[in-house]
């Protein structure tokens, strides 16, 4: 076990899976020499056939991943920023997501699309800082993975690669340099299993991706006053409702934190899903925190107004618990 960065954990997963299975290959724009670096060095080990720099053609990147997957390969395509997935949206929604169903399981699309999302410190602004994972929840046929630390990143990426379905894999840019314990050996984390990142009694905070860190810090800061349970669903589709429901049964209070704009975001989906079964357990209305319904502005002075911050999370928790 050694400490490593999130981006290194991703690279370990890619390396190990490429060794394990010749059908795995990676592609994306400038992946051998630019960007956040998850694919760095792979070309030396696996050659240019299996580590492919592509033209700037997001529809063809995603669409050709679908096609290669249909033919038994296991492509892991990187889209440089999640915002650019929109260019290949059709190939996910109308092609990749529908194939297994239309072919009655005789075909499958074991592809992974990795994409960095989110904001802060980076100054990407409106077209380079979005958080777009929420919209894919409404497309049947896709799985959604969104790990919040290096350990999960490695285990989940391996599961995503071995999964027979199109998996969208979202990585918050801030996470890449975060460090954590990551075993050198092979391990996987099943898709559809939440992780209780901290146990608590008073309130359930469901947080995703970079928001997990914020939430854990708030839990630590408030530990003398409030016992906060922090749950990271880790995959949004499938969603591990059971773990959240069990927690809410105990705490009676729920806050969902995700960087997506609140309106139509996964926060509301989780709340509604949980209310269907845990309404009678609630002692207080379920609450949600997300970005304002506003494009992400460039200026550091404005950006922090739009996105969820530690302060906003703390304030809402205090509001809920003190009521």
């Amino acid at each position, binding site marked *: 076990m050694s400490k490593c960065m999130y981006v290194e954990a991703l690279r370990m997963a890619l390396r190990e899976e490429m060794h394990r299975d010749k059908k795995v*290959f990676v592609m994306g724009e400038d992946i051998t020499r630019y960007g956040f670096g998850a694919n760095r060095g792979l070309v030396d080990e696996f050659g240019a*056939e*299996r580590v*492919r720099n*592509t*033209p700037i*053609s997001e*529809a*063809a990147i*995603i*669409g*050709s*991943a*679908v*096609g*290669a*997957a*249909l*033919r*038994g*390969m296991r*492509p892991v395509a990187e889209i440089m920023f999640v915002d650019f997935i929109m260019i290949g949206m*059709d*190939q996910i929604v*109308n*092609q990749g997501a*529908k*194939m*297994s*169903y*239309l*072919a*009655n*399981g*005789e*075909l*499958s699309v074991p592809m992974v699309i990795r994409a960095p999302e989110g904001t802060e410190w980076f100054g990407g602004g409106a077209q380079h800082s979005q958080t777009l994972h929420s919209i894919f929840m409404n497309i*049947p*046929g896709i*799985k959604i993975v969104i790990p919040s630390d290096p350990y999960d990143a490695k285990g989940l990426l391996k599961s995503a690669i071995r999964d*027979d*379905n199109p998996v969208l894999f979202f990585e918050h840019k801030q996470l890449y340099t975060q460090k954590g314990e990551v075993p050198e050996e092979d391990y996987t984390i099943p898709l559809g299993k939440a992780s209780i990142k901290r146990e608590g009694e008073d309130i359930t905070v469901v947080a995703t991706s970079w928001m997990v860190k914020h939430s854990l810090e708030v839990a630590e800061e408030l530990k003398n006053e409030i016992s906060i349970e922090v749950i990271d669903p880790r995959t949004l589709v499938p969603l591990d409702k059971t773990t959240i429901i069990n927690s809410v049964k105990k705490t009676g209070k729920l806050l969902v934190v995700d960087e997506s704009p609140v309106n139509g975001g996964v926060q509301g989906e989780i709340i509604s899903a949980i209310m269907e079964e845990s309404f009678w357990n609630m002692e207080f209305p379920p609450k949600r925190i997300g970005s304002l319904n506003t494009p992400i502005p460039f200026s550091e002075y404005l950006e922090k107004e739009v996105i969820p911050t530690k302060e906003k999370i703390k304030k809402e928790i205090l509001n809920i618990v003190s009521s």
Partner: protein
Amino acid sequence: MAINKEQKIKMFKTMSRIRTFEDKLQKIYRDGKLDGHLHTSHGQEAVAVGVMEALSDKDIIFSNHRGHGHFLARGTSPRNIIAECYGKVTGTNKGRSGSMYLVDTKRGMPVASGIVGGNICVATGSALASSIKKDNAVTISFFGDGATNIGFFHESLNMASLWNLPIVYICENNQYGEATKREEHQKIEKISDRASAYSMPGFTVDGTDLMAVYEAVKKVVDKAREEGGPALLECVVYRLRGHSAGDVGPYRPKKEEEEWNTKYDPIKKFKEELLEQKILDNQVVEKIEEEIEKEIEEAVNFALDSEAPLAETVSKYVYREEEDNE
């Protein structure tokens, strides 16, 4: 490789089967006994048959919304396609597709695309898989003239050329996209000229001339198989019927239709050739046509007699899970 007599007769039969099949389906549709989007390939039969004859069993074909001919030419049974159009469990897709998204995994035909041009990137990925696996398969991507204006076409052809992928892009230029004549959707003279924008070889062939199609495809497929590398092949045909079964094409000059119907019906043309070459005589032709008529009748009855898919299967295979891998 020259085509021998037997092959020619078989190819004639296949073209006739496609025509009879689609005549029948169109009639059923117009009688109000069938619903859904139904696009027939009248006038394009020589493309389907010529292409398939030039392929090997391991090759992969991506079809589109106008795909009955492609599947029939590859050997999919008319019964299963008709059953599919009726939404029955004996259909190619167990009733999940209808006419537009047919599949035949046993014959290397993944799900056809109802998104115009939607298969072009996907087919490119199939060729990429072959290129990495070195499995010697060539991939075919079928699409229409209208589809050559969509971004997928551009991104894919650039990628395939760059990576020297074993794929043949076949444009069935039937001169219309729905009600839009080609001059109204693009300004270029020949669609195959677009290949040069990717340093890719491009060819135009008379798509109503079966042997010409076969030979043109054979050449580029063999090259793709041996050396890798894509090609764009434009097959000029004419959509002898409306865009879909319900469309009688009021927007088209009748004279234009008539001219093509008399001079460029690929089946008529090939029949005359075979008669002339004494490979067939009129009696044999009549017999063939009768047999096919019967085969299609039976296929319709098969479809009608088939069961509907079971309600409880409706959400199966949205995801493919491990337990599905036998």
